[in-house]
């Protein structure tokens, strides 16, 4: 579904991504872990071109993810993203947050977009919050709404950029539960996270990044039990 070849990204002289190759298949849950500064988030943000790659090629469903805006916008409609800091629209209530993009981009009527939104709110257990404004929600609730907002565009893949890193510990579980539910229903997901337990339980494949490269990849269980690379070993010994 997503094919990345020789992806490189530099900020001035500093090279953050030093040639990434990877393929993400339909229905796969790929978890990206690694020390901070290893380029995990940059990698993820290059996939939908929120970050402009310096070189390399990214293909999504057979189409190149290119700079041309009209192409890019239609690709992004199929490629959802969930952010560390939620980025809900604070001047709109939950319902408006969810229905804005489907109404404007897919030309759904208000009624059918609201129907869709209600279904998604039920799925994340927040139907009663449909008229609430983001500021009145807890972090965990905000992130569940953000996931629902991204689902409202019915994407083929969702990119998660450290979705639980800004949450109080007691709220991490509710967000991870929603993500597990998505994984069970076969959603393709790429997840940058520090939640090792979750990575192990839900991930079909694990990528360990360090210094702008994918150092090791494989089944999460295999890597957690028998890391092959010394850098992976060192990292896992620190976080587990």
């Amino acid at each position: 579904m997503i094919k990345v070849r020789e992806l490189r990204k530099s900020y001035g002289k500093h090279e953050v991504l030093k040639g990434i190759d990877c393929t993400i298949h339909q229905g796969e849950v790929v978890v990206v872990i690694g020390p901070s500064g290893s380029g995990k988030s940059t990698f993820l943000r290059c996939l939908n071109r929120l970050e402009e790659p310096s070189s390399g090629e990214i293909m999504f469903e057979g189409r190149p993810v290119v700079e041309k805006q009209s192409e890019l916008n239609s690709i992004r409609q199929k490629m959802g993203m969930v952010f560390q800091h939620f980025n809900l629209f604070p001047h709109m209530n939950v319902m408006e947050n969810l229905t804005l993009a489907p109404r404007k981009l897919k030309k759904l009527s208000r009624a059918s977009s609201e129907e869709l939104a209600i279904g998604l709110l039920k799925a994340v257990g927040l139907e009663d919050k449909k008229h609430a404004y983001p500021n009145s929600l807890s972090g965990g609730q905000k992130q569940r709404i953000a996931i629902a907002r991204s689902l409202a565009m019915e994407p083929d893949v969702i990119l998660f950029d450290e979705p639980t890193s800004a949450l109080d510990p007691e709220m991490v579980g509710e967000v991870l539960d929603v993500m597990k539910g998505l994984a069970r229903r076969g959603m393709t997901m790429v997840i940058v996270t520090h939640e090792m337990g979750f990575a192990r339980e839900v991930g079909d494949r694990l990528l360990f990044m360090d210094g702008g490269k994918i150092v090791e990849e494989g089944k999460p269980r295999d890597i957690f039990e028998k890391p092959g690379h010394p850098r992976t070993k060192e990292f896992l010994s620190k976080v587990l």
Partner: protein
Amino acid sequence: MNFSFLTDHWQMFAHGAWVTLKLSFFGVILGTLLGIFLALLRLSGVWVAKAVSSAYVEIIRGTPLFVQILLIYYGLTEFGINMSAFMAGVVALTVNSSAYMAEVFRGGIEAIDKGQTEAARSLGMPRGMTMYHIVLPQAFRNMLPAIGNEFIIIIKDSSLVSTVGIAELLYNARTIQGSLFLTFEPLLVVSACYFIMTFTLSKLLGALERKLRTR
């Protein structure tokens, strides 16, 4: 003090106030629109657009409104552009206030968290739609005090266009001053008129601000 002239001449003040309001209204609306446009040029990332916008802002901010009014009304006749005095007044106020508005809007837009734009763009929303639905409404709320300030300045500065013969508040007051040999009182009345306009506007904007903030 003698305010007896008001019984015979109050219509002149009323008419002047009406002209002032019209001038300010067009100045505010057009200045705001042009200001948003200039701010977007400045933030566009296109080199030429940025240069044009910042040059405009610097030059207009760096020269007196009074001189701009004279340039637009008298100066432009050199190039065969003859505007009515009222039109010249509106153009001058628009040109002048747009430069300040551009800076207000630029600051307001830049202050909105980048994550807002990223979230909208990641849903597939194009740039313009993101600006219109996500960034500007939030920026507008934060900018309201600064915008109100600018509106008040425009109302007061519109008195400068009396110099090209527009019969607005100040112009009419001076007419009365001259014909009745009253130096002080007509100006006091004019001040009161300006104050009523600006104070009302200030209260209206305050109410709008509170309304937007209750969310």
